[in-house]
């Protein structure tokens, strides 16, 4: 490639834009991390920037000592594991048969399933259904009602459709039934798409908020996001007061920062490892059939 002086300048501009994007994405997290580790005096004086001032781990100790919060963390982790496993099983059970071109009724199943992507009954009908089948305020309401994402199913189906049919056909000639083919040929080859969907489902459940807000009012079953929201809503009202009346904000600032870190760090630890998988998944999902 020709490297004139002009294109060198261009290279630097491109690098600068990327550095800017990196900073904008990372700085808020760094700031909250710094707040969670700072002393209350430094926080009230507004001295905390990107590094903790007056290093203090008390916020973390107190969040961990608070039974409600740790219990919500474990509960959400449990929900995430169970929910993700169930979702992956149901998604596979849905996607795999639909890849058989000669499946009788395939068109019917496809239409019935895809239609729900474009039209849904709405929140209140869902609420009334859950009420009438006695799911409301039961732990199951956080696992079952949204366990299958049609969008994710389509991602898996397109991935399976791209696998050579000849493999399946030769296995069938050897006498293998559909389940056998799924178990010993498709599933091993589908590892990348399973990893992608596992990430999507797990992040979705870990971050899930509105279903708990609407369908769950038993405090012991609150997932982490709902607990966090209640905490943050409290910050908000305090800050609104301080914006108007000039009161100093509460001393629990660092506590709230620490709580945010607890909900964020698991995600930050997981998603980079799945990057090569989810890029393929996200691209497949955009190319709908």
């Amino acid at each position, binding site marked *: 490639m020709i490297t004139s002086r002009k294109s060198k300048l261009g290279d630097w501009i491109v690098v600068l834009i990327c550095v800017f994007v990196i900073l904008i994405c990372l700085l808020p997290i760094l700031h909250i991390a710094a707040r969670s580790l700072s002393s209350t005096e430094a926080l009230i004086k507004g001295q905390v920037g990107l590094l903790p001032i007056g290093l203090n781990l008390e916020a973390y100790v107190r969040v961990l000592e608070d039974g409600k919060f740790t219990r919500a963390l474990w509960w959400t982790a449990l929900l995430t594991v169970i929910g993700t496993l169930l979702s992956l099983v149901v998604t596979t059970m849905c996607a795999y048969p639909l890849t058989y071109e000669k499946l*009788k009724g395939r068109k019917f199943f496809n239409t019935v399933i895809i239609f729900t992507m474009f039209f849904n009954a709405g929140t209140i009908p869902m609420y009334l259904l859950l009420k009438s089948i006695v799911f409301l305020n039961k732990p199951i309401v956080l696992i079952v009602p949204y366990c*299958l994402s049609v969008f994710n199913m389509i991602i898996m189906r397109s991935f399976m459709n791209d696998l050579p049919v000849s493999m399946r056909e030769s296995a069938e000639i050897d006498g293998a039934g559909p389940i056998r083919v799924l178990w010993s040929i498709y599933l091993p080859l589908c590892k990348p798409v399973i990893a992608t969907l596992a990430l999507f489902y797990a992040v979705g459940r870990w*971050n899930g908020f509105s279903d708990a807000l609407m369908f769950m009012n038993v405090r012991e079953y609150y997932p982490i*996001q709902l607990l966090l929201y209640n905490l943050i809503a409290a910050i908000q009202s305090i*800050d609104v007061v301080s914006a108007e009346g000039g009161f100093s904000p509460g001393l629990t600032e660092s506590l709230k920062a620490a709580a945010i870190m607890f909900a964020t760090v698991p995600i930050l630890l997981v998603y980079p490892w799945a990057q090569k998988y989810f890029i393929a998944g996200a691209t497949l999902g955009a190319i709908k059939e």
Partner: protein
Amino acid sequence: MDRIPNVSANNRGLRNYFSRYWTLYLLLLTPFVYIVVFKYVPMLYIQIAFKKYSLVKSLWEMPWANNNGWEYFIKAFNNRDFIFALRNTIVLNLLDIIFGFPAPIILAIVLNELRFKRFKRFTQTVAYMPHFLSWIIIAGLALQVFAPSTGLVNNVLRSWGFEAVPFLNKPGHWIATYTFLGIWQSIGWNTIIYLAAITGINPELYEAAAMDGAGRLRRIWHITLPGIRSTIVVLFIIRLGYILGSEFDRPYALGNALVNNVSSVIATFIYHFGIRGLQFSLTTAVGLFQSVVGVIFLLAADKLAKKFGERGVV
């Protein structure tokens, strides 16, 4: 299994087929029951949009609403809160389209121009991160970073001699912050599809252009942009189709009492007046209105995309 249309095949062939493939139907059973119970059965409850909801009566016994059943639709459109929610839904979506739609295209082009592969990967990894954070977490970050008295941004502004900005506490500022945070959350993730489209461009085109002495901007304008044009058009039209769609978590988590007039959208209206306010008929009517208009817009968007000679979305 009686649903399967009996295609002229002879009985023996059919029996052969089922003895071979019945397990496929067994697999489909669970997801199919799920879809019916959690996607189609709720549709039965849509009728309460046209009926007077009653806690004690069954779905079929409830009396029809006035005005031939349209009572609650008429009520909705005479309801100030609903009109605000409808207006805000459209305004916030339009702002997301105007500012949020071009952002990832620009970033994808910039990333494509980046020559240092490792740095490119790092930038991508970092830029994908906000997509994985919940709106509750983002609201928590935003409230601390943008807080009027103690937030980082306002501290910096004050130390430079500016006035503090009420990012989330005044309607106009709130709308801007809401739009900005939307870009922050989605810009990196949405580059994925454009970067994939850019990969599909024939590299010989770039080489030929470089030989002809075309500069960077001209290559972007004449090769990269036309190369991803169809992706842009399709995604833009789909996005237009969702103009009446409303997220719940984002406006709900970012909103507060001072900005309710601009932050309430259809989804939060349904939550406040339905699940909290128990006005089930009214909010089911609102939800039905949103769904039906959504389908119409999407079908129109699909037609439009096909008119542009692109693959449709439906």
